[in-house]
């Protein structure tokens, strides 16, 4: 069997499920992504004490309470993984993080991926958040993103406090909603999406994010 990520041949453990499973990841590739340790309960920003970080306190002061569960740190290996997944377009490597994502699954929840704009979808051909959301559980595309080109006309100040690009076209009837995204950098995207959903009538919104960009890291978020 060949490893999904590095294409090296590997031996797989024998269980009846071996026949059913197609994609295998070798242990060395599996250990490349670093899981987040203890940190902020709201965004996963690593700290020793497990307190809410200052950025999340700032969100709370605005009245936005959103719990985001991040899985991996967005370090060198994470950047490489995401680049391969998102920009090279190797969609199936999502199945290498699928077990970690599926562990967060809970019942009676609708998973809502963060949408990409129509133009971006034409180029990239797929919505990376939707692929990840489908790894977890039942998804429903409740959000709609308006065109990005309108953002380009905004000035620097307007972009920093950018207007909410997400709208909810239908009324939300499902109870609990979990948003899914790939990278959590400042949290603006997820907070805006959660705000739109709450306004449309969602009772309970939280979020799952695959990577957490570390504030201290020199690596630039993509």
């Amino acid at each position, binding site marked *: 069997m060949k490893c999904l990520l590095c294409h090296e041949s590997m031996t797989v453990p024998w269980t009846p499920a071996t026949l059913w499973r197609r994609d295998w990841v070798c242990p060395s590739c599996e250990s490349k992504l670093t899981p987040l340790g203890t940190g902020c309960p709201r965004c996963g920003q690593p700290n020793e004490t497990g307190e809410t970080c200052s950025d999340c306190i700032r969100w709370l002061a605005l009245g936005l309470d959103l719990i985001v569960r991040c899985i991996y740190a967005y370090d060198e290996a994470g950047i490489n993984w995401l680049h391969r997944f998102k920009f*090279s*377009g190797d969609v*199936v490597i999502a199945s290498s993080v699928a077990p970690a994502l599926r562990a967060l699954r809970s019942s009676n929840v609708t998973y809502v991926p963060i949408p990409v704009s129509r133009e971006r979808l034409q180029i990239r*051909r797929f919505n990376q958040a939707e*692929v990840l959301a489908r790894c977890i559980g039942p998804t429903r595309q409740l959000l709609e993103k308006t065109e990005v080109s309108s953002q380009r006309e905004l000035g620097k100040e307007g972009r920093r406090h950018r207007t909410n690009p997400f709208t909810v076209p239908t009324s939300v009837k499902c109870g609990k909603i979990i948003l899914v995204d790939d990278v959590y950098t400042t949290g603006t995207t997820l907070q805006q999406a959660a705000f739109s959903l709450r306004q449309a009538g969602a009772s309970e919104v939280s979020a799952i994010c695959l990577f957490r960009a570390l504030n201290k890291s020199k690596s630039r978020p993509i």
Partner: protein
Amino acid sequence: MGELIVAQAGKRAIRFGICQRCLSTDVRTFTCHHGSCAYCRNCLYLGRVCRCDYLEERDITTPLETTDLTMPFELAPDQTRVANRLLTWWDERKTGLVHAVCGAGKTEMTFPVIERVVNEGKRVLIVSPRKDVAIEWVERLERAFTVPVTRRYGGGDKDSIGMITVATAPLLMNVRDVFDYVVVDESDAFPFAFDVALWNTIRRAGRGVFLFITATPTVWQQLFPTVYLSRRYHGFDLPVPTLVKQSDERLIALCRRHALKPRLLFVPTKADLERYRETLEGAGLTCRTVSAETEERTDALHWLQETNGVVLATSIWERGMTVRDVQVGVLESEHRLFSTRGLIQMAGRAGRKPDAPTGEVCFFYKERTFRQDVAIRKIKEANRR
């Protein structure tokens, strides 16, 4: 005839679960923007093709040029014989094999035929197994020819085709019937010899006339008309390997014996690199390791040449590298990854320059194998011929 380009019209990029660009079946389904779709994982590095894409075959538009040749040195009589044979093969449009020992000046022998092919208005392709070897080809070609040499490998410009193109095989996936003359350098090296698909990509890129150049041809390649060259260009014998029972003391003794010369030690696997580095550093020798994952391989090559150090390498360096007056040791030469051909190539790293025509080659063994014996016998045979 031409290059396959993702376009709006043409034939479907993926048909019947087969990628039409690389002809692999590693095609996976996913959800495209219009619904269910499939993409090819094998040729992602050329840009992704989806089932909803179309491939168009576009003709090569780079202008046909003529070139002048300035030989870097005068060919020896033996080399002239080989070069003339290559010219007659080209005139008859025949595929052939150059079976020349390591360090015989194989690169320069092909220059006359490349010049003739280019001046007839045909395109030449030079395929090499690895980027390092390709870079060396480009350097030598640029010194000899006036026509610009195109670099079609990772790090060069990946989508260009000129009169003389130097390429690694995977980047030729999207080329069909373009090159009238294809020189396959080190044609028995790792990717070509074991991967029929890779050979088929080269065959699709060419138009039927090939030239295999190697010191250790496979049986299949030996079926083609062959020209032998069993003498290095400086006229000295190939260094014959000695078999030494492996122990740490003997290994360190080899390194100490040639303290003022660069020493190159081959190990079978990447795990062994670290193990032997600890052994050598315990004995007070500084060394560097080179494997396929090492990014600054040329840097390590310069370091080896200039500081006369010790380098532990995997078989990534068994071909296409030249260091003046290097001493070679092969550790665990009974390992199954060291084939007869690999051993001959590794022994051929020693004594490649005319001012240092000999060198010591040691096969360290824990067990004796036929592969070691056959390698030594072949080298001795080449010396006798």
